[in-house]
């Protein structure tokens, strides 16, 4: 039998807490960018509603259904990027993906998201952790297209 440690490592208290009591969950009346993200192979879905002031992510909410990993990742992501500039948010996305996709050590900037570093060891679950972040990137593209976020040049 494999040890329980991987399970403990994956489903830390903070992950399960964000899964069952997600932060920034629901809809945002003041949102001016809305995107849907999904993982067709497993059926997980997330809707991201973002209020951007042209420079910063002033506020955001998510809604969706999915596993503990995808929901906790979304909850933690929204907490982290709220108030950040788009540039800062996308830099965090890079750091997060480096951690769960490539197995890089978590950066201090990722804060509590470091709790998801164990996902890297389970190839089948990486896409759960990145779902919300892919939606964030999609929102950035949408915001740029509408002139509600700085264009990529200069990033």
């Amino acid at each position, binding site marked *: 039998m494999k040890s329980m440690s991987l399970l403990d490592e994956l*489903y830390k208290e903070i992950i399960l807490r964000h899964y*069952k009591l997600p932060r920034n969950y629901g809809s945002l009346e003041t949102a001016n960018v809305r995107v849907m993200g999904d993982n067709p192979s*497993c*059926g997980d879905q997330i809707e991201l509603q973002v209020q951007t002031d042209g420079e910063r992510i002033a506020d955001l909410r998510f809604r969706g*259904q999915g596993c*503990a990993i995808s929901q906790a990742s979304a909850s933690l992501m929204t907490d982290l990027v709220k108030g950040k500039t788009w540039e800062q948010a996308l830099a965090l996305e890079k750091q997060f993906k480096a951690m769960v996709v490539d197995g890089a050590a978590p950066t201090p900037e990722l804060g509590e998201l470091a709790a998801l570093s164990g996902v890297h060891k389970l190839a*089948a679950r990486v896409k759960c952790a990145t779902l919300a972040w892919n939606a964030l990137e999609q929102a950035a593209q949408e915001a740029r297209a509408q002139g509600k976020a700085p264009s990529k040049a200069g990033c």
Partner: protein
Amino acid sequence: MSYPVDMAFVTPRAIRQDFPLLKRHPKLVYLNSAATSQKPEVVIEAVSRYYRELNASVHRGAYTLSTQASEAYEQARRTLARFIGADEQEIIFVRNTTEALNLVAYTWGLRNLGPGDEILLTEMEHHANLVPWHLVCERTGARIKAIPLGPDGRLELEHLNTLLTERVRLVSVVHVSNVLGTVNPVAQIAQAAKAVGALMVVDGAQSAPHMPLDVRALGADFYAFSGHKMLGPTGIGVLWGRYEVLETLAPFLGGGGMIREVFVDRSTYALPPQRFEAGTPAVAEAVGLAKAVEYLQSLGMDWVWQHELELASYALKRLDEELPEVRTFGPRGPDRSGVIPFVLGGIHAHDVATALDQYNVAVRAGHHCAQPLHRKLGVPATVRASFYVYTTTEDVDRFIEALKRVREFFKDWI
């Protein structure tokens, strides 16, 4: 062959010894046979032997080896025909059930359906028996209706007569649900379909591997199944079609092997089944599948079905009695195969499956390519444990014990 002769001595534990992968992973509790089965030594050996001893172009060469390879391929066709009670010229080798259903959709469907025509499916279909018909409807203007799924996991057949109007030209129904394990009364549906002159198609992906079968007695026109779910190789499957229907159909794919005569600007076509087998076929895989069928026949399909019924009933009883937090789906009774879908409280299916994997229990989690069915069940995803000939009672015990530990792990969050 070294198959067990006296069935009294056949046990799943002994059968397990015929499977190299299971011997290599003695602690593995493999409960995902509904997705794909493991392969016995004799099948792996038959594929290997074909390449070592017989490999040649089939139906092409004038040399001895080619004749022998062709004979091995046609022998495989005869074995498959006998297995399901069909004639050999009615067996079309395809890649899998999906391709078989697409073949019917693209040949019969595109040619015979038009605006106002209706296709009758069910709410428990696998995407392989939904999407090909969506594509046909987009091109022909035909419409889809579905027999509803009832709360007990069975089809609500009281609606059948209302649904089966004369506009219905084709009925396509899954024989055994890949999610719920429900065995649908296909013969009864086929009879009703015939009464309105509709073509009857059966998705047999989850029935052919598990139960005795006589496609003619079912009253179907087409029956589709995959080799890899019944101990055979990947990349090989069967579409059975009633010959009278097959000979009216235009080809599916064009190319070598399916022609009678070819000119630069036109061609005429071979008779079925060759008409539907363009290009070099999966010969080694067909030979492997025939060996898988022989292996299953040595166990006896009655035994296979009985074994799975017993495992399902044992597993359901233990789940009911010992794990009240587990909610299972699907009918209770003899019309249910060895497939058990469930959820553990409010814990998502993927998390339960990942946790079970830590105890070497391999299950599938998700929508199992049946999103409409899950919408009806009211859950986004389920965990599915599925059994086969090599599944032992000990496997079920270890699954239950692992599930109890998973329950313990998530206890504050269920």
